[in-house]
């Protein structure tokens, strides 16, 4: 009853093509933005910012990047973490080698650098498809962290390979406290998500989907496969690169190449699967789910054990995490292959009628 489009007539093409065509959606988004930009900074504690909200946003961005490549363009990549590493270390080196470079500019440059690397590793996709390509992207996953460790220049000859990022300073203002860092990453992620949302409904996004659904057919109707795939790799890597830079600068503060391992790549892939393949919003759902799940599991297992007076064997939490993670992935793919985003869709359909039966 409250979420209906009836009566909202569109009188121009512009209205018809608006990003959010229903008033309720516009109000909803406005409320979310107000909540994220105003209410949360007022209410949340430092723990929430550093342990939950900032990683959630950073991972959302990375998942968004992977979703553009895998969900929209249909190219499965297992090297997301490596591209994040490129972004993190590129941003670090731009800041280090170019004195006075605004940090936002170096984030963007890091994204562009990653895009170039991503395109290079995307070139095989022109000839290799499907699983062969997925395995081939593992080459990036193993090669890039190795290169970052081996070539001392990238880590500024730090003996342990760990880099500590420079302070995030914009126009002389240092983003230092958790809430400031949260607002910074929120602003960046919001802008990039809006861009992605528009991109996937432009002709580039449509070409991606055509290639995903059947590349031979796409080629026959005149889509340039090479251009489309390489743009997908480039744009996706740009997002992952910026996410990597934020991961280093805003979330952790100091990173090492080995931190960007295959596990991280899989985590981000899981976010995409659970959130919803081929959905911008799904990337956020998935990131929230995967970020919160370990925290909940920890609480449940530890509190449950305390309640039952059980002594937990060492490492049981991580084992349980593996089990629950794996089980959930299997469950989701069987029950709802389109992920949480699809559940949201179903909810919206239901909301159109609610509280009436017809």
């Amino acid at each position, binding site marked *: 009853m409250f979420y209906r489009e009836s009566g909202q007539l569109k009188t121009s093409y512009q209205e018809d093509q608006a990003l959010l065509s229903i008033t309720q959606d516009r109000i909803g988004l406005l409320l979310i933005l107000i909540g994220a930009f105003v209410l949360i900074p007022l209410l949340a504690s430092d723990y929430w910012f550093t342990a939950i909200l900032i990683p959630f946003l950073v991972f959302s961005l990375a998942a968004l990047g992977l979703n553009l490549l895998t969900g929209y363009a249909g190219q499965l990549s297992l090297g997301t973490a490596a591209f994040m590493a490129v972004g993190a270390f590129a941003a670090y080196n731009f800041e280090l080698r170019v004195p006075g470079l605004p940090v936002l500019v170096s984030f963007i440059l890091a994204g562009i650098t990653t895009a170039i690397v991503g395109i290079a590793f995307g070139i095989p996709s022109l000839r*290799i*498809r499907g699983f062969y390509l997925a395995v081939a992207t593992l*080459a990036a996953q193993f*090669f890039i962290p190795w290169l970052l460790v081996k070539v001392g220049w990238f880590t500024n000859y730090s003996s342990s390979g760990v880099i500590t990022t420079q302070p995030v300073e914009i126009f002389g203002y240092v983003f230092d406290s958790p809430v400031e860092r949260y607002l910074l990453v929120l602003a960046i992620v919001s802008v990039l998500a809006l861009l992605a949302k528009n991109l996937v409904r432009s002709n580039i996004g449509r070409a991606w989907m055509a290639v995903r659904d059947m590349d031979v057919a796409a080629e026959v109707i005149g889509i340039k496969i090479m251009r489309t795939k390489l743009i997908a790799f480039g744009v996706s890597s740009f997002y992952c690169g910026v996410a990597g830079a934020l991961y280093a600068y805003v979330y952790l503060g100091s990173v090492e190449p080995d931190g960007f391992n295959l596990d991280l790549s899989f985590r981000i892939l899981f976010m995409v699967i659970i959130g919803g393949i081929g959905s911008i919003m799904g990337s956020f759902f998935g990131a929230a789910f995967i970020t919160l799940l370990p925290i909940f599991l920890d609480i449940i297992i530890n509190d449950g054990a305390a309640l039952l007076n059980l002594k937990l064997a060492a*490492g049981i939490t991580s084992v349980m995490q593996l*089990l629950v*993670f794996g089980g959930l992935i*299997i469950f989701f*793919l069987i029950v709802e292959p389109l992920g949480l985003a699809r559940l949201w869709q179903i909810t919206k359909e239901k909301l159109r009628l609610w509280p009436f039966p017809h």
Partner: protein
Amino acid sequence: MEFFLEVLIGGLLAGVMYSLVALGFVLIYKASGVFNFAQGAMVFFAALTFVGAQEKLGLSLWAALAFSLLLMILLGVLTEKIVLRPLVNQPPISLFMVTIGLTFFVEGLAQLMWGTKVYPLELGIPDEPVATTIESLGLSATNLPTVLQEINSFDLIAAIVAGVLVAGLAIFFQITKIGRALRAVADDHQAALSIGIPLKSIWAIVWSVAGFVALVAGLMWGARNGVQFALTFVALKALPVLILGGFDSVMGAIVGGLIIGALEKLAEVYIGPFFGGGIEIWFAYVAALLFLLIRPEGLFGDKQIDRV
């Protein structure tokens, strides 16, 4: 030259170990078109069950072997029933991702059952140069060429095991009725179904056979490196072998394994020093990738023909 030969033989024998793991992937891919990423986890599960049954349940070596085989078959059948059957007709990418989920689940399950300790796995195979083994048997090894004397007995036995396994599988596939049914299913699911081949039981058999192969691989790798979580990374070593050999060729798994093993060792010795070492993590991948650019379907893989 002798040094080169030594490195080459060492590499080829190490490659056989990769082939053992790659075989499991190929079996399932051939019969059901699923790229089973969980094969590495199955190898880990099998090895851990084998040592766990000995340590915790006090079973003898053979009883533990039978027990783990049974459990692997059960795991395979259940996987097919619970995980894959509901996903029939889903795009291959979904099937691939479900096996990534399965990987995590099986790894967790194995550790939940047997704990997170590192176990040694003792099969009674000597890990020493062949010459020493021969001498310990009371024979003289002096008339063997030195290159052969230096070969590790363990590697040699692993190679023999792999050879026997491949030969056994080849016979199984070529001669037995089930084997022929498997090949028919691999060729065309629908046609096989329409001439009365029971698809469901065939897939259950394939998963069981893959479980058996995982057990053999788990025993060999476990005896070599100890049974620990790192065993799951064995699968990552087998992937370049797969893309090099072709996903759907048993022959490819063997030849690919040999090539990757040899290349890796040679590169480590002759190219590695220029890069400061450590290149074996990615070298196999890059080598396989370059090869794929020339032949996208791998060495022995079926050529894919696309139609609109």
